[in-house]
C-alpha cells in the first residue's frame, strides 16, 4: 500500500488561472440538440467552462498562478528548491515543461524540475512528490504546478467529453514547517484499465498515420479520431463510484476519521452527478463539499487546487481546516490525502487571454 505520512510540511499558498474564453454548454455545442444540451447540463452541472486559445498552454496558466503566489506570499523565485509539474498537456513532447518553467519563473538552475504525466490524480500524486522531496530529500520549498488544456485533446463534436472538460492551471507552494500537522497520502494504480480513458494513437505505441487522424463516428457514437481523447463513460463512472469510494472509505477508517472530523472534502471535479454520488456515499453534507464544476468544468490535474483556490479566496477569515482530498482518473490512477489547511494564501482566480 503506497500510503505515507509526512510531517513538518504545510501548504502555504494555492493559486489558479483559467483562460478568459468561455464555452457555454447551453448555447454552444449546436451539433447536439437543445433538449439534450439542457439534460446534460442538468446532469453534469457543468454550465460553462474555459477553453484555451491555440497559443495558450497549461504551463502559461501555471506560470501566471505561480507568479501570483510569489507576489502574494512575498517569496522570491530563487527560494524555490523544486518544480513539480503534473500535466497531460506539456508544451513539447520533450523536454519536461518543468525545465522551461525553471527559466520562465526565473528560478535557480540548481532547482529540481520534472513533469509528472498524470491527469485527474495529478494533484495528489504531485503532492506526494512534493512532500517526498521535502521529507526525504531535505528540500525546503517545492512549487507544485498542476494544469491541463484538455479541450485540445477532444474532438469538438464528441459529446462524451466536450460538455465536461475544461482548461485550467494552478500553483501550490509546499513548504517545510516544523509546526505543521501531518499530511497523509495514499496512492493507487490499476493500469489494466488504462483503455477506459486514453488517447489511443499518436504516441510511440501507435504512431500517427492518416488512418489514426481520420475523424469519424466511433462505435460508442462519439465523433473523433483515434488521436483524440476517448472516455468509456460507464467504466469511469463505475471506477469512480466504486474503487475510489472504497479507497476513501478505507483510508478514513484506517486514519480513524469520520465526516464529522473533516471540514472540507475536495474531490476531483469529475462531473456533478458523479461527485454528488461519491459525497453521498461517503456521508458528507453538501456544505462540506466545494464545487467549481459548474463554471470551470473538469479541469483534469488542476481541478482540486483550482477548487481550493476558489474556495479559500472567497473566505474573509481563514482558520485551521482539516481537509480530505481525492483525485482519480486517467491511468487508472487515484489517490486520497488528508491535511490541515492553516491560513493558506489564495488570491482570486486569474484569467488569461
Amino acid at each position, binding site marked *: 500500500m503506497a500510503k505515507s505520512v509526512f510531517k513538518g510540511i504545510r501548504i502555504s499558498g494555492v493559486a489558479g488561472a483559467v483562460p478568459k474564453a468561455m464555452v457555454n454548454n447551453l448555447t454552444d455545442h449546436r451539433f447536439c440538440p437543445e433538449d439534450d444540451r439542457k439534460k446534460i447540463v442538468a446532469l453534469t452541472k457543468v454550465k460553462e467552462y474555459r477553453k484555451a486559445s491555440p497559443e495558450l498552454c497549461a504551463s502559461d496558466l501555471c506560470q501566471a498562478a505561480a507568479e501570483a503566489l510569489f507576489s502574494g506570499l512575498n517569496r522570491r523565485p530563487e527560494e524555490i528548491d523544486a518544480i513539480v509539474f503534473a500535466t497531460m498537456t506539456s508544451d513539447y513532447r520533450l523536454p519536461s515543461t518543468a525545465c522551461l518553467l525553471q527559466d520562465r519563473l526565473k528560478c535557480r538552475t540548481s532547482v529540481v524540475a520534472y513533469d509528472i504525466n498524470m491527469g485527474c490524480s495529478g494533484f495528489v500524486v504531485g503532492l506526494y512528490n512534493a512532500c517526498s522531496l521535502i521529507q526525504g530529500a531535505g528540500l525546503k520549498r517545492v512549487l507544485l504546478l498542476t494544469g491541463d488544456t484538455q479541450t485540445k485533446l477532444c474532438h469538438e463534436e464528441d459529446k462524451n467529453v466536450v460538455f465536461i472538460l475544461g482548461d485550467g492551471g494552478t500553483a501550490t507552494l509546499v513548504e517545510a514547517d516544523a509546526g505543521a500537522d501531518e499530511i497523509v497520502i495514499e496512492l493507487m494504480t490499476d493500469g489494466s484499465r488504462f483503455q477506459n480513458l486514453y488517447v489511443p494513437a499518436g504516441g510511440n505505441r501507435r504512431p500517427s498515420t492518416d488512418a489514426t487522424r481520420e475523424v469519424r463516428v466511433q462505435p460508442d457514437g462519439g465523433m473523433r479520431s483515434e488521436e483524440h481523447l476517448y472516455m468509456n463513460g460507464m467504466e469511469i463512472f463505475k471506477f469512480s*463510484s466504486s474503487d475510489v469510494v472504497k479507497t476513501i472509505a478505507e483510508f478514513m477508517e484506517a486514519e480513524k476519521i469520520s465526516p464529522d472530523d473533516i471540514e472540507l472534502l475536495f474531490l476531483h471535479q469529475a462531473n456533478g452527478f*458523479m461527485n454528488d454520488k461519491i459525497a453521498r*456515499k461517503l456521508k458528507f453534507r453538501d456544505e462540506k463539499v466545494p464545487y467549481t464544476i459548474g463554471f470551470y468544468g473538469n479541469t483534469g490535474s488542476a481541478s482540486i487546487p483550482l477548487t481550493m483556490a476558489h474556495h479559500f479566496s472567497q473566505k474573509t477569515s481563514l482558520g485551521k481546516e482539516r481537509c480530505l482530498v481525492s483525485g482519480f482518473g486517467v491511468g487508472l490512477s487515484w489517490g486520497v490525502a488528508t491535511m490541515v489547511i492553516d491560513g493558506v494564501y489564495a488570491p482570486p482566480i486569474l484569467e488569461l487571454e
Partner: protein
Amino acid sequence: MLTVEEKIRDLFAALLQVSPHEVRDETRPASLERWDSMQHLILVSGFEEEFGLDIDPEEAVEMYKDFATFKRIVLHHMNSKS
C-alpha cells in the same frame, strides 16, 4: 390505467426521446442508438427525480445491461419505498 411497468417503460422512452414501442425487455444499449453512457446517467437521474429514488452507483452501472435489468432495479427501489 397504466401499470407500473408501463409507466417505467414510458418514462424511459420519453427521457431517451424514442417511441415506447422501441423499448422491450431485451433492449440493450447496443441495440438502441440513443441509449449511450451519457443518456444512461440522464435516465438514472430522471428516474431518481420522478420517483424520489436514490439509486446506488453500482446499481446504476448494472442497469446499463438491458431494459429488463433497468426495470427490475427501478421496481425494487419503488417497492422498498412503499
